[in-house]
Each structure stands twice: as C-alpha cells, then as structure tokens.
C-alpha cells in the first residue's frame, strides 16, 4: 500500500474511535487445567503430557481447583459478579495443536461478569468496564521446520509440542470503550498495564508479555461523530505495552485512510508487527468458523460456595491503585511527581529500594534520573535496565557513609548497569573511593591554598562562597575521589574560617 497515512491529529478530529481488549493470562498453577501435568516452562517437547492433555481416546478432564480459585480472585479484583453456577463449554474446530479438536472454554456462562477497572490516563481516571472473565485451556505449539520462514508455507515438516496444551488460561474481555478520542491508544496501554499489575499483585501469574503469559488482542473501529460504530478489526500478536499503544494508533490511522478514500473496513483479524509497528490482514471473520459451542458434558458445573467467594474477597491483597495512593502519601509526593514515577514504571522499583533501606527521595532520584536516562537511551523498560533495587540501595548506602560522592556514585552505577558487579565491588575494582585519609587530603588542601593565595584571601575576608574554587582545585588533584562536603569543611578549617 502506497497511500500516505493521514496525521493522527486530523484523524481524531474527524473520527471517534471505539476500542475493546481481550487479554489472555496464563495462570501460574503448578498443574494444568484438566490434568496433573506440570506447567513449568521450557521442558523438552512433549515431556509435560499425559493421556488427558494429549486428548487420547477415553481420557477425561478434571477441573483444577487452584485455577478456579485464581480466576475468582481475578474476577473479584476486577469488581465482577461471580456466578453462583456456571459451566464449561466446548469450542469445536480442527487444528493440530489442539489435541481434542475442541477447546474446553466457557461460552454463555462465564464465571465472572460485569466488572470494571479504573485506570489513570493523563491525570484522569478512566473506568474500563469488564464484560466477562472466563477460564479455558491453552493449545499446544506448532513448529514448521525445513522452510526458510518458519511458517507452514515451504516447510517440510510440522512438529507439535503439547507441553503447553492444557495450561489454564484466563480470558478477560472489556466492554467497548468509547469516548476516549485521541487518548484511545494511551487508554489501551494503561488498561493492560493496570491489569497486569493487578494480576501480578494477586500472585496468580507472572504476567510476562514477552514470554506470552499475558497476551493481548485489540479491537478497533472508527465512526463519524453521532453515527453508529464502525466495523471493527481484531489485532493479534500484540506482545508489549508499547505495542498495545502502537497497534491501536496504527489501526486508527489505517482505518481512517481507508474511510477517507471512500472504502469500507473489512471485519477481519490483523497481525501486529513489532518491527514496523503496523498491521497486516489475517483471516477474514466474514467467513467465520461456526464453533458449535455446547456445554462440556465431561465436566460438572462450577458452583462456588458463596461463603468461599466471600472469604477470597476478604483476603484480596491491597490492589495497585490503592497501594499507589498509600505510597504517594508515604513518600510525600505531589500528584504530578507521582505521575512521573508512574510514567517511568518506577513504583515497584522505588518501593523495593526503599524497603532495602534507602529514603524515598534518594530512591526516586536514582530511578527517575540516571537509570531512566539510561533506559531511554537503550530503549528498554526501566525494570529491565540491569540494576536492581538492592544494588541501588547499596549504592546510596555508600554515598550516605561518605565513601562515594555523587559523581563517583554515578560512575559506579554505570558499572552496575553494565553488569560489572555490585556497587561495592565496582568501587573497589575501579579504585573509586572518597579520599578519607585526612593526611593526604590535608596536604592536597594546603597545596591548593598555597597555589591560589588570592582565593584564599577572599575566603579569609568572609567571601565563603569562593571556597568552591578551592574545592574544584582539590578535586582535580585527587581525581574526584574526595567528598565535596568534607573537603569544604577541611578547607575552611585550614583557613581558620567558620563555615
């Protein structure tokens, strides 16, 4: 397509976007959804399998109670109603990575319905309504070998690994999100980020987008103001928070250019490409498969005891939004400051650094300053920067103990980020330590006073501010290994001036 895309501002001035998100979360239960096979990641192909998850003739599923508990907790955290009685359903379609050629899922009787999740976007709270949260089983993975592309076309063989087949998956579906205008891409991103944080807080999944334990499909449509919603597309393969935002934006632009040219949007699945940031068409939904859903006769209905649900609700941990508000208060931050912490993705990092023994101010300084800068430069998430909260706390401890000054600390931090070791190790290996040997330092101070008699006189006559020049001179001779505060006091002392 050679069409030039319209400018984003123009698009949102003319069209109203409606978005919707379907998120799949792999639960971190010890065993699979319907059998006792382990769920650990990375085993040799087809070593985490049994007659049940291979769909061998005669085998039967038995629902994993831990998975049901996990989804109820997710539903409660998302303010959903928990069904007192619901069933699994079979979704029938042929695919080789699906052992039974049907997926055990839920259809018209999901376990959690009608919830919401509040997210912050640009200082505003946006309420995202949740339509349903249901439980299903994951499929296996197909690997096409022998071809150049790794795709089925041109491959000589297709291999299937069923280790993932039967891992419990939770699907969370929002209601259509309207009225967000130009912020639609940010709202989508903020929702997924908040959802991820909620689920992580519940401890039911490691929610790693890059490993696929959290996967996201984004529905997007555009309509003219006052008119009916447009035809939507479903963008799959959106595997990072940044991609969620880019996928919505790119799909809005693409649809606008089609509509501007008098075309019509095809209801279809589109694939998002991380590298180019755009989407390409997948299978058309206009010839949609009829999944022939019907209640799963091999499983009894789920009827969670309301008393148990109440217990689970009472035992929910503090959820991220509440938690953040409490931290903001504890850290004494303004809304604006807290927003910058949030934008940087630094809440948990700062919290952990404080827990490791540092003041909130110092922790915030390192994570929002030096480390955010490095993360931006290398284009990685702050949490992936290579410095841990413990290391940052250790670094600040060295500063507080007077062993490192600010400049040296930054050098040590570079080393930490580059993987050279702990701050103490780097301080030693790089020979960076504040010169605290008073004899050596006194000699350097005396030398600087002697070399700069004019400045010394100025200080003696009361122009204490001039001490900076002598501090600089000593720093130069000691290659910066002196603590500026100590040095200042020492100079004044040698000159007989009260600081």
């Amino acid at each position: 397509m050679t069409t030039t895309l319209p400018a984003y501002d123009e698009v949102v001035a003319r069209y109203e976007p409606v978005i919707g998100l379907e998120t799949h979360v792999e639960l971190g239960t010890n065993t699979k959804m319907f059998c006792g096979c382990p769920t650990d990641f990375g085993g040799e192909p087809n070593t985490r399998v049994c007659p049940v998850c291979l769909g061998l003739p005669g085998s039967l599923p038995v629902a994993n109670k831990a998975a049901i508990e996990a989804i109820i907790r997710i539903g409660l955290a998302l303010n959903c109603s928990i069904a007192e009685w619901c069933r699994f359903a079979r979704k029938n379609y042929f695919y080789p990575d699906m052992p039974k050629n049907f997926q055990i899922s839920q259809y018209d009787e999901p376990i959690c319905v009608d919830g919401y999740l509040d997210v912050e976007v640009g200082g505003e709270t946006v309420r995202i309504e949740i339509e349903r949260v249901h439980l299903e089983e994951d499929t296996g993975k197909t690997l096409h070998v022998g071809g150049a592309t790794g795709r089925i076309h041109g491959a000589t063989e297709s291999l299937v690994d069923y280790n993932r087949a039967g891992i419990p998956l939770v699907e969370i579906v929002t209601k259509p999100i309207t009225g967000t205008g130009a912020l639609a891409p940010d709202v989508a991103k903020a929702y997924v980020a908040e959802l991820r944080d909620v689920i992580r807080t519940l401890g039911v999944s490691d929610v790693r987008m890059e490993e696929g334990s959290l996967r996201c499909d984004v529905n997007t449509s555009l309509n003219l103001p006052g008119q009916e919603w447009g035809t939507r597309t479903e963008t799959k393969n959106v595997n990072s928070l940044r991609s969620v935002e880019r996928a919505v934006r790119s799909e809005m632009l693409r649809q606008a250019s089609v509509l501007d040219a008098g075309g019509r949007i095809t209801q279809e699945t589109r694939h998002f490409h991380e590298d180019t940031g755009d989407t390409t068409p997948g299978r058309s939904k206009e010839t949609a498969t009829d999944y022939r859903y019907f209640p799963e006769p091999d499983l009894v209905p789920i009827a969670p005891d309301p008393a148990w649900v109440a217990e689970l609700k009472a035992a929910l941990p503090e959820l991220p939004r509440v938690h953040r508000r409490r931290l903001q208060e504890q850290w004494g931050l303004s809304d604006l400051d807290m927003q910058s912490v949030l934008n940087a993705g630094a809440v948990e990092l700062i919290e952990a650094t404080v827990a490791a023994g540092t003041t909130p101010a110092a922790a915030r300084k390192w994570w929002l300053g030096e480390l955010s800068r490095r993360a931006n430069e290398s284009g990685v998430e702050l949490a992936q920067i290579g410095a841990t909260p413990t290391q940052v706390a250790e670094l600040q401890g060295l500063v507080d103990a007077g062993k490192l000054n600010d400049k040296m600390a930054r050098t040590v931090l570079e080393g930490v980020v580059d993987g050279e070791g702990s701050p103490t190790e780097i301080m030693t290996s790089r020979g960076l330590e504040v010169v605290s040997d008073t004899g050596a330092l006194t000699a350097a101070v005396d030398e600087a006073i002697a070399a700069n008699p004019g400045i010394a006189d100025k200080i003696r006559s009361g122009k204490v501010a001039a001490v900076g020049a002598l501090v600089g001179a000593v720093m130069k001779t000691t290659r910066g290994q002196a603590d500026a505060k100590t040095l200042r006091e020492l100079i004044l002392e040698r000159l007989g001036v009260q600081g």
Partner: protein
Amino acid sequence: MSDLTRMTATEIASLVAGGETSAVEVTQAHLDRIAAVDDRVHAFLHVDTDGALAAARAVDERRAAGEELGPLAGVPVAVKDVLATRGVPTTVGSKILEGWRPPYDATIVQRLREAGTVMLGKTNMDEFAMGSSTEYSAYGPTHNPWDLSRIPGGSGGGSAAALAAYEAPLAIGSDTGGSIRQPGAVTGTVGAKPTYGGTSRYGLVAFSSSLDTPGPCARNVLDAALLHQVIGGHDPRDSTSIPQPVPDVVAAAKLGATGDLTGVRLGIVSEFVGEGAEPGVMAAFRESVDALTKMGAEVVEVSCPTFAYALPAYYLIAPSECSSNLARFDGVRFGLRVGDDGNRSLEEVMSLTREAGFGPEVKRRIMIGTYALSSGYYDAYYGQAQKVRTLITRDFTAAFERVDALISPTTPSVAFSMGARTADPYQMYLADLYTIPTNLYGGPGISVPCGLSEGLPVGLQVMAPTMADDRMYRVAAALESAVGTFTPPAL
C-alpha cells in the same frame, strides 16, 4: 472336573480360592473354547492369550503365597473394545483406531486387574458403540449363539455373545442407549447399566459423554452384581463420577434370589406394553409379571407419556456429543493416517483419514450432530432435546414416587436376522426404544432373561431410581429364581 466354561463366576472363584482348580486351568479352558467356536461367533476382536495366562499365573502365585483373594479372583472377563487397555489393541470396532495400543488402562480395567480377574481379550462392537446389532463393526459382525444367522444385539454384541457361547463367564459392556441391556435380552444373558456416574468412564472411548455408562454382563444376576461391585464406585479421574459407595448390589441379588418380593411395588410402563412389541415378547413379559406378583410384588401400570419422545431426543443429544467427541480422530497423534504423501495439506490428510476411517453409521451421526449444534439450529435441536430430557427425568421421578422400580420388556422384538435392518436406520434405532429413556434420565437398568419366544430369548428390563441399583438387582434375581436361566443350543 466338569466343564469349567459352563460354570458361574461365583463357582469358578470358589474353586480357584479353594485350590480345586487353578486360574491358569480356568483361563486355558476358556481360551480353548474361544479357539473352538469364535470363528463362527466372532465375539472377539482380539484375544490376549499371553496376557490372560500371565494374569492367571499371578493369581495362582498369590494364592500359593497365602494371600487373600478377591471374590472374582481367577475369573476370566471379556472386555468390550471400547475400554482402553494398556498395551492391548483398542479399536472401538473402527478402522480409524486399527493398531492403536493405549498407553494406559481405563479405570474399570485397572480395577478388574486389581481384583485378580483375567482379561481374555477385547470383544466386538458396533463402531464407536453406534448400533444395535454389531453389524456396524468395521471388523465384521458377531453372530448370536442362539442362531448364528441372527444378530446378538448391539453395540455390545461381542460381550453378550461371548457369554452365551461360553467363551467367558463375565464381560464388560457400555450402555449409551441400551448397548448392554439389549444384547443381554437377545442372547439370554444378564446386562446391567449402572446409575450414570456409578461406574467410571475414564478410559471409555466416548460416544456420548452424558449417556455412556460402562457396566457388567454375566449369565446370571449374582455374577453381574459381583462384577458391578468390583468395577463400580467413585473415580477422581471422572468428574461425573458420583462420590458415594456402590449400593450393595450383591446383598440385593442374594436377597432377591430368596424369591420374596413382599412389599416391593413395581410399575409397568404403559407406553411400552402397547402395540410396538412382538406378541411372543409380550407373552413372556406377562408370564414374568405373574411370577413377580406371586412372589409378593405389587404390580401396577404407570404412564410415562414423555417416553414417546425419548428416541428423537436421544438421536439429537447422542450425535451432537459424538460429533465433538470424535473430532480427535484426525490422524495427527494416533491410529489411522491416510494420504500423508508429502504433497497434501494437513486438512486434506485429516479429511482423507476420517473419510477412510469412519464407517457409514458413524458418519451419519457425526453429520446429524454437527448440524444439530450449528449456529442457528442449536435451540431448535440440541436445546429442545435437552428440554425433553428434563421432562423424561420428571416422568421417572414422578413414577418413582409411586413405585420402587419400573419394568418393561427390554426390547420390542427377539433377535432379528442379520441384514434385516441395516438398510433402514430407523428400524435399527427402534431396537432401543425401551432402553433409551433410562439413559436420558441417568438411572440404572438391568435386563434379565424372562422366557423364550419361538426358541429365542426375551429380556425383562427393571429400571430403578438413580443410585438405587440394588433395587433392580433384587427384582432381577427374584425373577431369575422363578424362571431360571436359559441355555442356547450347542454350537
């Protein structure tokens, strides 16, 4: 020693336990009988000679070591080929599973092994248990030992014929719409369908998950009860299994055998004693009712008007579930694979495999079920059939408020001639007219021989409330004590 193959399971177990014969001797006698007659009967799809003798030796060794043996230790059992048997071919009567040796045992098979019974082999059946004559087996039909030109019933014709031909004293069947009871009736043997959930379905290759019920087959009621006791009970690997102990069916069979039914109220299902049944069948049934009355039972007629809709409801529910259950047979992981020549797409290979692997009756039901579940038709077919199922359950519940058990002929006719109904599926389906309501309700039902019509056996069916399996054994054993057992002509 008299002929070991003519003995009851109870007698065999007692002789083995007493050291008067060995399990190996018993097993060999049955293997010899199979070798002598099965080329004419074709009850077995696979005879596991080595496995059977090894299991028998193990029982003998345990006895020699002074270990306590279970009530059926050393007794041979024939297992319908619908149950997964570790390392032993399991075909479900279909070409699509030819050569498949499961890596695991069905729960029932495991319980049979633990009880020290000796599995002789796997018995013939209509493909995927879909049929009433065993003529739909992909491996050729089984012949009725009473008249080799007639059908042995189905789908479990192999198990029933093996009993009637004295190839095995006990057998396992599975009953989705009558596949244990109807073959029992037409071969003069006893077949019991337990309460749904009373016997584990784990390892039973599914036809219709909400209806399939494995159960015991024997030549007399007490043997069936003993086998029921061994295979029944809760299984955590089957969610639909009932977490309660098996009702004491053995005690009930012994109580019934005393011939006293004082205080037992029986209801004849009015709808099943009308014009549909053959006169000879009705005559044998009426005589049995008289016998039950003489033993003290109070017999009344009970109308169950919704039973008339059982057959159409069944032929929507069962095919719907089967269309989904049979999707896994695609040639990817096990069994037959056709057309994988390196040039065909996966979808083509799947289609060719299913085209070649499934027989016509299986295809017919997959198509009916696929249609009934499809979007826009679901409510009119599958949904409606489920509502009928609820109504049938209500009729049963109402009936059991008036009577302890319901009775009817098991089938409308005696064994029909081979080939008589294969051209007309509806005529074939009618063979299960009286047995299907019980499956839709989920309660237990048993067929017990009650007489002969033109030299062929007639069965009487006793239906009881769910988890009251003991009641039907009591009534069946009482009837057996009055009318005796029936022996087919020598083969």
